[in-house]
């Protein structure tokens, strides 16, 4: 067998094993006591910490993302998701150069985004553990609210990775917890700070209805 053919076969084999792990029956799922649901609608609130210090300097405190998400399970443990996240915050730019008096310029940034991806979920008793990854499209808009400066708008593509822990509270109602890392690099031609990007880590909680 040629080298390339052997490598291709190895890839297919690994993919098969992964599929078996995520959707296969016992013994891998020996401790599973309930079936994962077919679909879910989630609403979460949380806190996001931007990784870039420049972002944190301008917009102090945590951002509060609000996310609406829909999940659909394709196979027993494999699901795809789509979500919309709303993120906005007030900040300020400070100018200080004596003898001129200090000036503060209020800012408002909005970072709504749409995300799509897939992941794996493992139910265990009343718990559901999940991990996933996907792509994001973020539309940004930043205003100097008191100054006559053109509003900066544009969009950025990024990548997200998330982990979740859900707990069934009552029948179809679940309490959900999410941890997310979003990688949102800026277009180099637009960035102001040399290493600036909008990446961040967020923790959020909310409720889900699973069907």
């Amino acid at each position, binding site marked *: 067998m040629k080298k390339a053919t052997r490598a291709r076969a190895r890839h297919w084999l690994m993919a098969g094993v992964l599929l078996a792990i995520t959707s296969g029956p016992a013994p891998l799922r020996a401790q599973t006591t309930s079936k994962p649901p077919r679909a879910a609608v989630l609403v979460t609130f949380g806190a996001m910490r931007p990784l870039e210090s420049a972002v944190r300097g301008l917009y102090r405190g945590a951002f509060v993302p609000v996310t609406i998400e829909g999940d659909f399970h394709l196979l027993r443990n494999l699901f795809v998701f789509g979500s919309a996240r709303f993120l906005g915050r007030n900040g300020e730019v400070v100018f200080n150069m004596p*003898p001129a008096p200090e000036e503060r310029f209020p800012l408002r940034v909005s970072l709504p985004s749409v995300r799509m991806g897939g992941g794996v979920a493992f139910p265990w008793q009343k718990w559901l553990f999940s991990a996933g990854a996907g792509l994001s499209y973020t539309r940004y808009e930043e205003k100097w609210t008191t100054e006559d400066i053109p509003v*900066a708008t544009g969009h950025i593509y990024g990548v997200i990775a998330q982990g979740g822990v859900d707990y069934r509270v009552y029948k179809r109602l679940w309490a959900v917890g999410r941890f997310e890392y979003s990688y949102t690099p800026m277009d180099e031609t637009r960035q102001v700070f040399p290493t600036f990007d909008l990446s961040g880590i967020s923790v959020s909680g909310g409720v889900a209805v699973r069907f």
Partner: protein
Amino acid sequence: MTTSRPSCLKLGAVLAALLVILSTAPQSSDTVLLRFDKQQPVVVPSAVTGPMVAIQELATAWLVEAPASLLPRLRTLRLSFEVLDATTEGKAYFLVFAPQAEQIEGLAAFGNVRLLEKGVGLFWSNTDEVREIVPADISLKRLSGPISARLSFLTPGRARAVERPLRAQAYAPFDPRIAEMVGQVSSARILDSVANLQSYQTRYASTSNCEASGTYIYDFFRQYGLQTDADYFTFSASNYTTSNIIATIPGQVSPDRVVIVCAHYDSYSNQAKTAAPGADDNASGTAAVMEIARILAGYQFDFTIKFIGFSAEEWGLYGSKHYAQAARQRGEDILGVINMDMIGYADRLPEDLDLIVNDRSDWLGNKYVASATMYAPLAILQAINASVTGSDHSPFWDQGYSALLGIEDIPLKNPYYHKPTDTVDTLNLDFATAVTRASLAAVAELAQPSSPVAPPTGIQARSQTVRSLFTSRKMVVLTWNPSPGNIAGYHVYRTLTSHTGYQRANAALVRQPYYVDRLLRTDVTYYYVVTAVDAQGRESNYSVEVR
């Protein structure tokens, strides 16, 4: 261990070959002379540009000295260059100027010549001085050492001519005192000065007649009470001594800031030692400087004015090079240099004045045109052309100063150029007078006639960039020393083009000695001046400009 005889022979042969290669390869300490085309941006590592030394900027090219060892590296970069001379050791290079390429190529009979651009060549021979072997109809500039201009491979070439409209923008309010000064320019006095300079028969630097004409100019300046110096220097392989004649009106507010109006007083012809009247080249420019000095001597200005007659220009710009290099070394703050060279011959009527600037000096040309338009209307053709380096403005360009050349025609049209027939009867005095008036207006506007209200001094500009995620703006804080007297406040003026087109930035009178210009674009350079306003509402002249 032992070595067999054949192995020894092989080793010896290899070593011998290496020795031959090393002895014939260019020594790494050799310096080559290169011509780089100005071109579209190319990223060149600083390790490459570091050892390179620019010795001349032209409109479309740089002349650069570089170690020979750099050549292989340069060839790997996307640079358009040629080696003009493989070793510069002990050689004297001259730029040569002539309207026809054949004139420049004809120099091959006397030495080595390379045509660099239209009308400009590079010449060198086995002698250190070439004035006396190069034909009289070719003018010279000796290249010597690094120039202070930034060696940039990012500068696209530019040689363009722009005819400025006569109704140019007024950059400063009309000043009746300048109009009064302009009104005093006398054709008769200009004629008198040209005739007196011509009467020396020759002013060829190295002759006693040249020194005598320098003494005449010196005495003229002294006669009008100007502080005058003769700045002696030696030039050429023969170590001739001559002097620049420098008269000064000290500035009243910022004496460190200097405006120079100059012309070379030496002359040349194909019979230079006996008959070089040089009425147009350059008794005309010298007479204009003398006339301007005579008039301005009766006034006071914010900035210092220097009137300079340069010598040994015809040998390769030695006098102006001597002054400009020394000025740079002592940190002289030269605002602008107005050099007049051949302003008396009119090949057609009405004649227009060709005003030659480089990119850095474009503002000075604009200012000259604006001043002329306001006080002494004159047809002017302003050209940005860094290759016109055959007169005394060029050494100032080399030292990074703003300078312009006022000349009747580029290329030259005077049929008596560098001939014994360049005499006063061939001149158009009306044209020379008009140029003198325009130059006086420009000098006076640059130096600013003293006003009853003193402008602020000690202006400083600092900036801070304020940034949001997607937008950045610049905050400029200007501070200054309060003006003396009963001052009600200050006005701050801003412009995007240095020294011209100031627009008031403040809405209300500024009461404190500082001002914040808010939220400006970060990619734009802003220039500021400040004025003081007294209790009667009288406004001072502009302060020194800061950026």
